[in-house]
């Protein structure tokens, strides 16, 4: 697994500047920039929305709805630098709302998901990556639901808006940081106790 570059404090940092640039270009009349913006951020939105437990169809609906909301309310994004946060926060809020309405929440167990995956094959590096992913998936599935959700959100959104996250996770704003630390520690503990994990990582 590659290590983080030094100027990268998280995973999503690379994209907010690009997103801001594309958004500004689109606002200035470059239609193709919207195309690039959608292709850049749609995978991020997908993972954020899936963190709320929606099934795949509902998750797709929420991603579509988020982009429609951006185009309809484009004037509410005054600063292009805010476009990443605007879309991610809108997507999470909509996902949370949809999940609360009780619509088709996905309770897929890792095993069923495992079965849906193509058989492991291909180059050695791919095999290793998949094996690593499966191991990690198995351990994350043992964490409390709140931890699973929080970790998936922060793995795809570098600095999520804490106010909305607080509502969605049902914890105080001041507890998000400590909760994040505890969740990561729990995961580290599970991984450390798994010889298979250290084998794969060495």
């Amino acid at each position: 697994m590659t290590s983080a570059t030094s100027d990268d404090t998280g995973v999503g940092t690379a994209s907010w500047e690009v997103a801001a640039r594309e958004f500004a270009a689109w606002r200035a009349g470059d239609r193709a920039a919207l195309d690039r913006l959608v292709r850049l951020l749609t995978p991020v939105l997908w993972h954020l929305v899936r963190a709320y437990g929606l099934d795949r169809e509902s998750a797709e609906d929420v991603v579509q709805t988020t982009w429609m909301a951006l185009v309809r309310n484009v004037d509410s994004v005054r600063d292009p630098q805010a476009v990443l946060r605007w879309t991610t926060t809108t997507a999470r809020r909509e996902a949370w709302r949809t999940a609360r309405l009780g619509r088709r929440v996905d309770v897929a167990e890792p095993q069923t998901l495992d079965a849906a995956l193509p058989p492991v094959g291909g180059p050695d590096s791919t095999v290793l990556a998949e094996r690593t992913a499966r191991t990690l998936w198995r351990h994350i599935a043992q964490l409390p639901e709140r931890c699973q959700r929080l970790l998936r959100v922060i793995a795809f959104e570098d600095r999520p808006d804490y106010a909305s996250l607080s509502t969605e996770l049902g914890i105080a704003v001041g507890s998000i940081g400590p909760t994040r630390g505890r969740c990561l520690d729990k995961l580290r503990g599970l991984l450390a106790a798994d010889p298979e994990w250290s084998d794969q990582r060495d």
Partner: protein
Amino acid sequence: MTDDVTLLRAVHDMYDTMDPPPADLADRVLFTLQLEDLEFELMRLEEALQPAGARGPETASTVTFSAESLTVMVTVSDSGPHRRRIDGWIAPGGALRVELRTPRGVHETQADADGRFAFAEVPSGLVQIMIHPTTGAEVPLHRPVVTPPVQL
């Protein structure tokens, strides 16, 4: 011990491997955003029925979409090589104007009083159905309703 950033990166890569976004999701989003007027209600895919054991040219599948005020059941069947036929049924029934958006243009028809409509000879690719408020139709719609784009 793995530091936070490395661990979160592993979590990121894991979800990308185990639960990736549908490959054409961005294409479908962009297909919808091409609509000039976004003042419509996006329908939700309620259920997708897999082809019921059928194989070969008779393969058909049915999907249901719902909006606040109506649902539409759509059956897609083969009508030739790379050609599909779409049969739709709007409920409650009404003689509503129906548009089918395809990458190659828009087809238009009107549902009958029972809400049934059809498009023969639809090329494969992304399509999207748009149902418009229609004067004289029994079903009052305040704004158009649009299905998410689906691959034929």
